[in-house]
């Protein structure tokens, strides 16, 4: 049956059709919907793991247990999962194991633009690159088959534009291979003596895979009428090249980008006068050509940075740009903002007010860095807020220990903040940790995590008690505060910053977008009392504007969180129920 499917949904369909039984993932844009779609199939057990390393280890364990298994992550998640990946490459697998990684050229929702193809090369595992939803489904299925044929984990690399584009998919039935028996085999114990033998097997495997790559239809030539030029390309860039040139020039479309064939490249290059390599991010295909002595043009024409498009390629090739029109006025940008009623707002306002040095982390709360709050000094990667703050405090001593905080979300804390807290406690810095507990993994679109009390299906699950956990780790000062209460939040921040020992503040209030969160009536403006001082504007709420020197509340956005009301010294912001205490 033909359906319009998001690339991510098509990968999940591929899991289903391939008989995959177990999926363990950590959410991360643009990969999140794969696992959210996979869980809709009752036949597939799915879970949110605490982080990507755990997810890959769990998926590998499942394949060791004889069931086809997969795990999904965004590109930076693969940094976290790299440790098991390299060893699992050596150990190999008998039952299909597929790792799905989603890159984000253009950084639509990411902190860097790293190219995951390097991981396939470094870990010596095959990598497939779909160019639309149909291929996302088909290549995922083929990845399981390749994994079993060559006894290796296989990576399927998506990019944001494939993940989040819908195109037509012709679906098939699910076929489940029988569960493989578990047989004890100590060649899987990666002690040096075994690992040395394993490395030899891995090198032979790569040779066998190159032979496969020479004949596999995963790498194919689209014939063209005009051989004055030929393109070597893959993934979404293939679509842009075809959009521009159709069947005019021959195209070598690479569906398996590691390991790459040799003769196929040489034959293609020999068939055209000018070889142009089109790939986003790093010159992987181009460098392969150069290693083979094939003269090509690639990054001499196209950027290393950002997402490509048909126009960008046309312009790099010297073709004319399309005519456009625009109005003369400057268009103000519209950056993403903390939602109205976001529980992080009150906390970040308090940090700004206390002139804190704020070590940030990865999540919705990174939006606290934007104006007017500007309450974040830096962020690095998942968990770095705590370990980074610890090192900073060691370098600068008590003066900064009393003004520096590390802010981290509930899901990020479990992902890789706990080890940073262990460093703070064990190596004793008087660091102040703020866990922003909004009862959900927010930025990626509301996924459950080990602190929410629910699993991926929304069924009740064990719930990690953050207060008990922090105390068990040796933090004596642990307190909970409601960030909607500015006075209490201010007190908590001041007192814990002053303490000469590690402390944890849990800023707890569920995300205002959660379905089960009851909203209060919108705040109203008493225009007689409003003097237009704009104090309420300091919290950066999208529901408040000042027009004609009076505050105005957008009632379609306001959820009645009451934070703005606490900013007003004139009593001009009022609750409709009259409870203005």
């Amino acid at each position, binding site marked *: 049956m033909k359906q319009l499917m998001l690339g991510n949904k098509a990968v999940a369909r591929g899991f289903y059709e391939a008989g995959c039984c177990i999926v363990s993932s950590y959410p991360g*844009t643009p990969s999140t919907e794969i696992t959210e779609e996979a869980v809709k199939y009752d036949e597939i057990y799915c879970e949110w793991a605490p982080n990507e390393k755990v997810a890959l280890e769990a998926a590998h364990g499942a394949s060791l247990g004889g069931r086809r298994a997969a795990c999904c992550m965004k590109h930076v998640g693969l940094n976290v999962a790299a440790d098991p990946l390299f060893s699992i490459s050596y150990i190999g697998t008998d039952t299909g194991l597929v790792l799905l990684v989603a890159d984000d050229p253009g950084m*639509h929702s990411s902190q860097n633009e790293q190219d995951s193809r390097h991981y396939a090369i470094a870990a010596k595992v095959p990598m497939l690159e779909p160019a639309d939803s149909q291929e996302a489904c088909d290549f995922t299925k083929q990845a399981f088959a390749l994994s079993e044929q060559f006894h290796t984990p296989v990576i399927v690399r998506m990019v944001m534009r494939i993940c989040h584009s819908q195109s037509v998919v012709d679906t098939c039935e699910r076929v489940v291979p029988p569960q493989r028996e578990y047989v004890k085999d100590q060649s899987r114990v990666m002690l040096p003596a075994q690992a040395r033998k394993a490395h030899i097997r891995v090198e032979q495997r790569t040779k066998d895979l190159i032979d496969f790559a020479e004949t596999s239809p995963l790498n194919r030539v689209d014939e063209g009428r005009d051989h004055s030029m030929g393109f070597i390309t893959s993934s979404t860039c293939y679509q842009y090249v075809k959009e521009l040139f159709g069947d005019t020039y021959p195209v070598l479309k690479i569906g398996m980008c590691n390991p790459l064939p040799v003769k196929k490249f040489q034959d293609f290059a020999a068939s055209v006068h000018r070889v142009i390599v089109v790939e986003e991010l790093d010159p992987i295909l181009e460098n392969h050509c150069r290693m083979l002595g094939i003269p090509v043009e690639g990054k001499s024409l196209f950027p290393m940075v950002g997402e490509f498009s048909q126009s960008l390629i046309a312009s790099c090739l010297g073709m004319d740009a*399309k005519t456009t*029109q625009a109005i003369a006025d400057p268009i103000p940008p*519209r*950056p*993403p903002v903390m939602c109205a009623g976001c529980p992080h707002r009150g906390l970040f306002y308090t940090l700004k007010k206390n002139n804190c040095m704020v070590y940030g982390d990865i999540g919705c709360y990174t939006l606290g860095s934007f104006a007017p709050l500007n309450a974040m000094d830096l962020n690095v990667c998942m968990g770095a807020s705590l370990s980074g703050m610890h090192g900073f405090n060691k370098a600068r001593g008590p003066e900064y220990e009393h003004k520096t905080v590390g802010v981290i979300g509930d899901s990020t804390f479990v992902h890789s903040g706990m080890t940073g807290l262990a460093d703070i406690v064990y190596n004793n810095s008087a660091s102040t940790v703020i866990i922003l507990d909004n009862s959900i993994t927010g930025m990626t679109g509301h996924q459950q995590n080990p602190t929410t009390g629910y699993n991926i299906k929304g069924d009740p699950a064990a719930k990690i008690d953050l207060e008990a956990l922090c105390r068990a780790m040796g933090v004596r000062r642990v307190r909970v505060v409601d960030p909607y209460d500015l006075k209490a939040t201010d007190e908590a921040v001041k007192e814990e910053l002053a303490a000469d020992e590690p402390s944890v503040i849990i800023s707890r209030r569920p995300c205002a977008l959660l379905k089960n969160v009851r909203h209060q009536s919108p705040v109203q403006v008493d225009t007689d009392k409003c003097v237009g001082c704009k104090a309420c504007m300091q919290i950066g709420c999208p529901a408040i504007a000042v027009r004609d020197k009076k505050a105005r509340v957008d009632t379609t956005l306001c959820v009645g969180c009451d934070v703005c009301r606490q900013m007003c010294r004139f009593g001009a912001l009022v609750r409709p129920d009259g409870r203005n205490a």
Partner: protein
Amino acid sequence: MNQPVRNIMIVGVGGQGSLLASKLLGHLLLNKGFDVKVSEVHGMSQRGGSVVTYVRFGEKVYSPIIDQGEADLIVSFELLEAARWLPYLKEGGQIVTNTQMIDPMPVITGAAQYPEHLEEKIAEKARLDALDCLELARQAGSAKAVNIVLMGRLSRYFDFPEEDWLESIEACVPARFVDLNKTAFSLGRNHTPA
């Protein structure tokens, strides 16, 4: 068929419901036998940022995205967004927009100004069909139905029978909201600007 690929952009502010609009459009176009590609933005931009969805259809569609100067039609959920994406419109292209104005944060903080008289300025550059979709959505019974009001308006620029659009609404929205959305669709399609 052998028609050239047509390009439609759906633009707005994160959270306004553009994903349902593109789902409905994609469903309809696939049923009409076209090859279709729809490209969306998820993640951080959905938190109140400027969002864009590309819908392309024809006999064979390669690229999932639309570049500057390529859109046949831009559907905008918000007036400033219509102006922002105007350079993506083809010469002679059509803009269908909600007249609602939502201040972006730089305007709220006073760092930037919301341009004045945008309707007139856009109309000087392109064919413009502007209507107050929020008001029509409220008439239909929910402010959230702005997306379907706009789809109703968009339907005037296609040759497909109205029943096909209504069938897509039935297929894409939960059963209990079908009637409300059909009303919203009809209000958008038939509204005559005062």
